[in-house]
């Protein structure tokens, strides 16, 4: 680990880092704009200037851009040197000449990188007294709001949208003082990853339009670490709530899964939490009087805990899969494969693979972040290529100039056009006659990934994945599964769906909407779900449970990684976890999730390592629960005065080490418990740079 000196203090840095990255990782206050940990350096904004000294005796030094300077052993820099300081003050003053004066009405205000950098640089008075340049904004569709006057032309947006996400409908227009970032004409952004603009743009140009519809400042949101429910990848998210409504979802860094980004399904696909057509909560519920045969139909979108509780209630013999029969067959095959070849690929493995073979998955649709990871992979290959020419990994523009050709590493078998096609070296149809052509490349690859999945309902494709794996033992397997907890449900060994052949007297349907043809064969239905569906409408008894945002539970993603999501909020009219409803139906005694999990781990030892590692209800830091609300959270004493003039007591959370309160622990914490990034002077998502980048979750083997 090289050591560098900043203002005469030694700092250990990661090999190959640039000075800016090293400095902000150590929590130093060095302002910057165009650099971003996932985009690398462009050296464009000149905000990150520092003084660079030849040696100890050099007091003069020369100015360099820290983001464009390698942090090599023994090198010496100064952030506080008066020359660099006044240069940075000038840069921000220029940058702010055109900027509006209205942070209080700006959506970015309070979590704005530009605001932070302006304060950090000490620019608090405007000398510029001329007209500012102004722009017209565009309507970019339902997700992204556009306010071009706030732009500081750092170019992060186009570098992300075009270079990382492959979008073609966002660009820089015009020149000099009039550079404009937008589309050719008004209209929704095409990319499935457009939402990341909100976090990538360091100012209020691109903000979350869905959030704006019912807005709140960052410090007024209650947040908790959560897991995306929209596909099987298990990306880490941070939802924010206020006054009982979910306001927005932001990215939560996970080094092996989503990294810095989310897809738009993950970011904007959470609105259902606020839907009105929720199934009514029924309580108290007495124990079920068992008469005749009772079956349970589990769910790949319900937690492990809920599925386990159902299985316990109806018994292993009567616990059925909530997947379709075909899905069950495919998933069983995948589980069988993975029990022999447990090395599954994470998204980070996909980003690092030197070849990727995709069998019948249109990834942009079925597992979007996997598609983005493949785009990121191509960039990493370009970084490798540029590395052999002596270009460091962070030197973005040099890498792109030195490596204009797409690396030939993506192989795809699919029968329809997919959005990844332009990146694919070799595309064949799913009848796989020409798969032989892939074999030399597969065998030659050092760390290839083979991707298949259930979306086409094809068993031959899944079998082909294992055939390929046999030819290349170094390859990792990656399966795209139907839903967020498909893997977890399969680990509970449900029987294939009974539907049509087996008529249960009573069926308990857990968080699942079954086809009408199936429902009509069921005699007596008890449905548990959050929103109304055909199933709850046809049920003899429908019991309302809480959504993922208000309950705590665990899920297993497509790589077999078990992760816990924590409830973000509790509604005033509390909605119970499905497992609590099942507990009451079954007259079990679990008081909290720990008690359920203790029994669960005994019955399914496979989950033991995960349940040991997960931060359970007993976990405390400095003897405290972790606060979900920021110390600046406003309105606590008055936010529910429409209901009662008395301040409501904070709700208790029996299932997690988190508190629905401003009181509690606020500092650094394990990554799986962190949901809001914040440091003194750093109010935007950039605060993350100096926090823990450790991994979390436990990989399970079927």
């Amino acid at each position: 680990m090289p050591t560098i000196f900043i203002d005469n203090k030694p700092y250990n840095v990661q090999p190959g880092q640039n000075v800016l990255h090293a400095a902000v990782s150590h929590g130093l206050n060095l302002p910057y704009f165009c650099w971003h940990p996932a985009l690398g350096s462009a050296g464009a904004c000149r905000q990150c200037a520092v003084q660079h000294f030849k040696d100890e005796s050099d007091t003069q030094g020369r100015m360099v851009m820290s983001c464009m300077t390698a942090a090599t052993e023994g090198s010496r820099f100064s952030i506080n040197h008066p020359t660099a300081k006044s240069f940075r003050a000038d840069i921000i003053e220029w940058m702010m000449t055109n900027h509006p004066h209205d942070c209080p009405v700006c959506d970015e205000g309070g979590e704005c990188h530009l605001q932070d950098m302006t304060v950090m640089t000490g620019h608090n008075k405007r000398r510029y007294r001329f007209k500012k340049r102004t722009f017209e904004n565009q309507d970019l569709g339902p997700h992204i709001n556009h306010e071009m006057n706030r732009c500081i032309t750092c170019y992060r947006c186009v570098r992300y949208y075009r270079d990382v996400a492959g979008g073609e409908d966002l660009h820089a227009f015009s020149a000099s003082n009039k550079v404009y970032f937008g589309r050719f004409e008004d209209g929704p952004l095409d990319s499935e990853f457009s939402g990341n603009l909100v976090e990538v743009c360091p100012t209020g140009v691109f903000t979350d339009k869905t959030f704006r519809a019912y807005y709140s400042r960052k410090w007024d949101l209650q947040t908790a670490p959560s897991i995306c429910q929209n596909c099987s990848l298990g990306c880490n998210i941070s939802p924010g709530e206020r006054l009982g409504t979910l306001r927005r979802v932001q990215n939560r860094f996970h080094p092996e899964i989503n990294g810095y980004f989310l897809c738009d399904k993950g970011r904007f696909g959470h609105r259902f939490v606020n839907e009105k057509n929720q199934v009514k909560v029924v309580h108290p519920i007495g124990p079920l009087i068992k008469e005749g045969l009772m079956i349970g139909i589990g769910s790949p979108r319900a937690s492990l805990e809920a599925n386990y509780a159902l299985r316990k209630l109806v018994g292993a013999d009567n616990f059925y899969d909530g997947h379709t029969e075909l899905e069950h067959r495919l998933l069983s095959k995948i589980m069988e494969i993975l029990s022999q070849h447990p090395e599954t690929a994470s998204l980070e493995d996909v980003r690092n693979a030197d070849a990727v073979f995709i069998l019948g998955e249109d990834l942009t649709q079925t597992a979007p972040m996997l598609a983005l990871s493949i785009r990121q992979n191509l960039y990493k290959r370009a970084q490798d290529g540029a590395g052999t020419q002596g270009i460091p990994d962070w030197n973005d523009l040099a890498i792109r100039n030195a490596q204009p050709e797409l690396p030939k590493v993506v192989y795809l078998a699919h029968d329809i056009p997919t959005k990844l096609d332009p990146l694919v070296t070799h595309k064949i149809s799913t009848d796989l006659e020409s798969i032989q052509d892939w074999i030399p490349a597969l065998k030659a690859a050092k760390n290839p990934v083979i991707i298949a999945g259930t979306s086409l309902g094809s068993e031959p494709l899944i079998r082909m994945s294992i055939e390929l794996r046999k030819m290349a033992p170094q390859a990792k397997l990656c399966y795209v599964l139907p839903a967020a907890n498909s893997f977890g449900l399969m680990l509970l060994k449900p029987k294939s769906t009974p539907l049509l052949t087996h008529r249960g007297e009573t069926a308990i349907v857990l968080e699942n909407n079954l086809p009408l043809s199936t429902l009509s064969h069921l005699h007596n239905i008890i449905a548990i779900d959050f929103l109304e569906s055909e199933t709850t409408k046809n049920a003899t008894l429908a019991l309302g449970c809480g959504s993922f945002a208000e309950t705590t539970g665990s899920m297993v993603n497509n790589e077999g990684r078990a992760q816990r999501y924590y409830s973000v909020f509790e509604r005033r009219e509390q909605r119970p976890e499905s497992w609590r409803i099942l507990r009451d139906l079954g007259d079990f005694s679990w008081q909290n999730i720990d008690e359920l999990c203790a029994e669960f781990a005994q019955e399914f030892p496979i989950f033991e390592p995960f349940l040991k590692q997960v931060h359970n209800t007993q976990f405390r830091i400095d003897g405290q629960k972790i606060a979900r609300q920021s110390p600046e959270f406003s309105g606590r004493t008055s936010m529910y005065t429409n209901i009662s003039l008395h301040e409501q007591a904070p709700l208790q959370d029996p299932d997690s080490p988190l508190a629905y309160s401003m009181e509690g622990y606020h500092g650094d914490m394990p990554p799986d418990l962190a949901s809001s990034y914040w440091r003194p002077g750093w109010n935007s998502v950039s605060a993350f740079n100096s926090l823990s980048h450790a991994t979390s979750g436990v990989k399970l083997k079927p």
Partner: protein
Amino acid sequence: MLSAEEKSEIDHEITKFPVRRSACLEALAVVQRHRGWVSDDTLKAVADYVGMSATELDGIATFYNLIYRKPVGKKVVRICDSVSCFIMGYDKIRSKIEQELGIQLGQTTPDQEFTLLPTPCLGTCDHAPALMINDSLHRDLNEDNVAQILRHE
């Protein structure tokens, strides 16, 4: 949308580059020669023809001050506002022209004869101030000769 003639001229430009889309700027110049300016629809047609998104092509089109994204008059007056001309009286020349033509920088006369635009250094600083009207260069301007030049162009 593109005429046969425009297409064949663009095709010819394309032969000069290893990649089709690299000819995009030349393609814009071709259609501008034929139409005087590049409308949104024309831009979309060119983008399709060279194989890039309209957004990307417009990023290029709007970067260059010689690609016109709005209609211009028959004569485009481009007055240099860089340092030498600025020192040598650009301000006065510009007001004189504005007064003569009754338009401001960036505007076109109602009869569609003149458009007035600024331009960076014309490379003739030793004869500043200078301007161009379409392809002809006029140098050593003063308030008296500039009106003359406009009338005779």
